[in-house]
């Protein structure tokens, strides 16, 4: 990022840095035989293999407790794999030192069901925080935050107090915060879980718009109606294992029915 004097142990993870040509043609995210144990006898993820290409939009689905959030946490290194590898841009995330984790996260945009918006901050402050942490000059922060707010449909609402916003608007602020550093990959963990159906569609559309500009999006949800409306790649987790459909629910080939698929 411009104007930053921070020494990064992983220069490749610099946001906005253009990866080398061979790197660009490789998948952005690869999971190789990943195991995650919370109890020694019962792995939450068992032997997950997954490959996500640059610019993809994929739903991650599965019943409650299947391990959707766990899978995303392995990517942003809230959790560490017990076996196997998670490769982001070719780098083994599991082997990053604690000191390098911030530099990994600067290349990810993370959105949650519960928004994680600071209520006593303004809309602007909530979005700007993602750029302040890399010591970007204020002038640049202002223009980029304004741009991000415009992209999520909150143009000119920066000075407003976040506590006054509706749920849908709060989630838009969270999305703006996730996209403002122009990350390579967006991880959304049930971003529509707290919103009513038509707002959920709005937010989904917002993520699709972001995806159309080239950002890879992983969208975890167990909302059947949402998945069935779109034709995106579907990654389903059940019993710790992954099964996939390349083009949405309609093309689902799995032996189990749709209802076990999305819980």
């Amino acid at each position: 990022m411009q104007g930053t004097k921070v020494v990064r142990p992983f220069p490749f993870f610099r946001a906005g840095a253009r990866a080398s040509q061979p790197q660009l043609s490789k998948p952005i995210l690869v999971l190789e035989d990943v195991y995650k144990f919370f109890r020694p006898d019962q792995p939450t993820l068992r032997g997950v293999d997954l490959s996500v290409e640059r610019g993809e939009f994929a739903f991650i689905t599965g019943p409650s407790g299947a391990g959707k959030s766990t899978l995303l946490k392995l990517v942003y290194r809230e959790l560490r794999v017990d076996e196997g590898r998670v490769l982001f841009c070719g780098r083994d995330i599991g082997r990053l030192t604690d000191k390098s984790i911030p530099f990994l996260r600067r290349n990810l945009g993370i959105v949650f069901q519960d928004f994680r918006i600071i209520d006593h901050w303004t809309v602007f402050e909530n979005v700007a925080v993602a750029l302040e942490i890399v010591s970007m000059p204020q002038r640049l922060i202002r223009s980029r935050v304004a741009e991000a707010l415009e992209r999520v449909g909150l143009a000119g609402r920066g000075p407003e107090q976040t506590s006054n916003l509706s749920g849908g608007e709060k989630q838009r602020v969270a999305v703006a915060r996730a996209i403002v550093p122009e990350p390579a990959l967006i991880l959304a963990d049930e971003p529509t879980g707290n919103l009513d159906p038509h707002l959920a569609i709005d937010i989904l559309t917002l993520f699709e718009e972001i995806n159309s500009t080239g950002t890879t999006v992983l969208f975890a949800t167990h909302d059947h109606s949402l998945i069935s409306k779109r034709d995106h790649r579907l990654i389903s987790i059940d019993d710790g294992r992954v099964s996939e459909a390349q083009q949405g629910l309609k093309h689902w080939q799995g032996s189990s029915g749709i209802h076990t698929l999305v819980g």
Partner: protein
Amino acid sequence: MDMKNAITRARRGLREERRLYIVAVTSLAVAFICLGATLLGVTNLDAAAARWGQSGRITLFLKDDADAQDVAQLRVVLEGLADVSEVTHVTPTQARESFLEEADVGADLSALPSEVFPASLEVALVQGVTRERSESIATRLAQFRAVSDVESYGSWFQKLDQLLWGARMLALGLALLVMFCVVAVIGNTIRLAVARRRQEIEVMKLCGATNGFVRGPFVLEGMFQGFASALLAILALLVGYLALHDSVDSTLAALTGSRVVFLGVWTLVALLVGGAVIGAIGSAVSVRRYLAV
């Protein structure tokens, strides 16, 4: 670490947690006032000691049967010494009078005959003669035939030194105690602040903030609290000093001939800088413990 950003966020933190911080600063100011008051005592005792030490004085008690010629010769020797500024001969009668005047005692003592008071030579030394030098002069003067006894007030200074040493130790002990208080109180306040800002911290961490970035403002806030406590204490002491100055000064001047002084510039600087540094240390320790980033 981005200092400007850390300062901005520390200011926001100070504003948001002002109630919490005001309580901490007020209680720490009380601790600093205790320390400052003790230091004030030490400073004034020091000043008084320095003053008395400078106006050196030796009393030569003369033998009752001292030869007048020997005494005269002694005076000549004394007046020839570079360290001596003035020599006064005190006769037994004069000694008795000044004793009765100063002691302000009852009629019983006034009946004392003059013979009880030996004649003496009061030797005033020039300004700046060290105590060691005055001791050695005293030892040499004791050799003279006419001299029965020499008083160089060495033991008196020793007592003063002991008193000063005690006061300094008290100040040191208090300083350590205050240090502990600052670390404990600020550490605890910062722990509360960390708990209250847990959500913000989590958001910053998810966005990729480094440990230093997250911890920086808390350390600055602790630093500010330490500094503010010391400053508040100094201001309170100054107000007290100015209010009591006139009455205390005249009493002290009459009693000891020295004037009341306030804490020296370097003591003030040390208090403020010390407060800030210890505050920063306290919050850094706390933030390390309670903010596992």
